[in-house]
């Protein structure tokens, strides 16, 4: 989905701004409900009621529940990536530690609304997911950040030059996503998630370190 779609045009017609207002109300209501009741526990009807609009109006703006969640996550991610864009260029030290810091920022951020994030993962497998929706794990911007971090690692000599970036990115993303399982099974807090992720990144780093 185009990142600019959610923005209000420079001089919106009354009709457009009304549509935009509806959209924002749906997203705000949905964010609250997904965070409280999870993805499966939330219905479009409830979102409409919570937003104070008719169910039909929701459907004129969004094709499905999956699409609403996708928009909710997108709106949330903007500040997170602003933060990462600000911090990442200043990170120093071994690649493994730079990666750890990047993920610690993620866990700190997501843990405040962890149920929302779980909804996001659950929805990646949902039947109502629209082709335009962005399922978890396909965030190009984040993957690019990891690639840049690895690239820098090659330059500083702690990443093997012939390593397949996409493979490493996928392994790290798998570890990241599945670490959230600990919220479901152990009710883990951000600190616990970060500790587990640190160990996993360490293990993957052994796999991309230069061979002696």
């Amino acid at each position, binding site marked *: 989905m185009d990142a600019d779609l959610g923005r209000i045009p420079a001089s919106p017609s009354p009709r457009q701004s009304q549509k935009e207002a509806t959209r924002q109300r749906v997203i705000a209501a949905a964010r609250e409900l997904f965070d409280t009741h999870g993805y499966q*526990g939330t219905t479009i009807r409830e979102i409409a009621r919570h937003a104070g609009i008719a169910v039909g109006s929701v459907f004129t703006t969004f094709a499905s529940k999956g699409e609403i969640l996708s928009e909710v996550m997108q709106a949330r991610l903007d500040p997170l990536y602003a933060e990462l864009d600000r911090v990442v260029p200043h990170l120093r030290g071994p690649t493994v530690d730079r990666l750890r810091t990047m993920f610690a920022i993620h866990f700190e951020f997501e843990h405040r609304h962890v*149920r929302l994030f779980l909804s996001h993962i659950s929805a990646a497998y949902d*039947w109502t997911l629209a082709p335009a929706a962005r399922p978890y794990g396909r965030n190009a911007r984040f993957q690019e950040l990891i690639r840049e971090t690895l690239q820098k690692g090659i330059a500083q000599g702690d990443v093997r030059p012939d390593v397949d970036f996409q*493979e490493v990115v996928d392994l790290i993303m*798998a*570890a990241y996503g599945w670490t959230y399982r600990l919220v*479901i099974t152990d009710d883990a807090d951000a600190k616990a998630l970060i500790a587990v992720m640190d160990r996993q990144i360490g*293990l993957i780093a052994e*796999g991309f370190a230069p061979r002696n």
Partner: protein
Amino acid sequence: MKHISPTQVAADLPARAPTRRALAKQQTRLKVLAAARRLFSEQGYEGATIRDIAAAAGMSTGAVFANFTDKSDLFREIMTDDMEALVAAMRDAAVRGRGVEDAVLKVFMAGYTFYKSRLQLARAAFSVSWDKDGGPNLRGMTSSQAFQDVFAEQLTAAVERGELSKEAEVKLRSQMLFDTYLSNFPQAIFEGWSLDALQARARDQIRILLAGARRG
């Protein structure tokens, strides 16, 4: 595990033959499970209702509830059957592996092969497992833990053979192997990856995850 057939039920009751009533009840269960399996695969967990499942099985919702407490109970039963069968298939496959990386790869492939014909059911299971309410239901299952055990067994054996170092962090590595195994399912489900493509990818992933534990 296999589906329990009426004859097996009979075998479990050596003292006397099952009553006609017990057999009929078992038949009903099997019919409901088959219908549920089909509907979960076609419509997902959320989309399939008990009412639809009952209709597909040709019985009343009351008859379904006489055998299963609710939809999650039904789903859990289907998943348990599959997981037990799969864990056994994975162990069989691992035996044929040459070296730890190959054995682990064979475990991965046993899973992808098993689910190749039921990817939509896998998709429903992933959706449920990430739900805060449904998740514990699936993840807490002993058969779910059994998957990690299969990976741990391969690594432990490799440590004993001297193929992996004694500091191989078997528990963390088994966990990560299992996670990685699961993480390739979206490619299979949504992008139609072939078994060959999955195998090539899995082989590289396993190599990276085991690299730090290799001796010498």
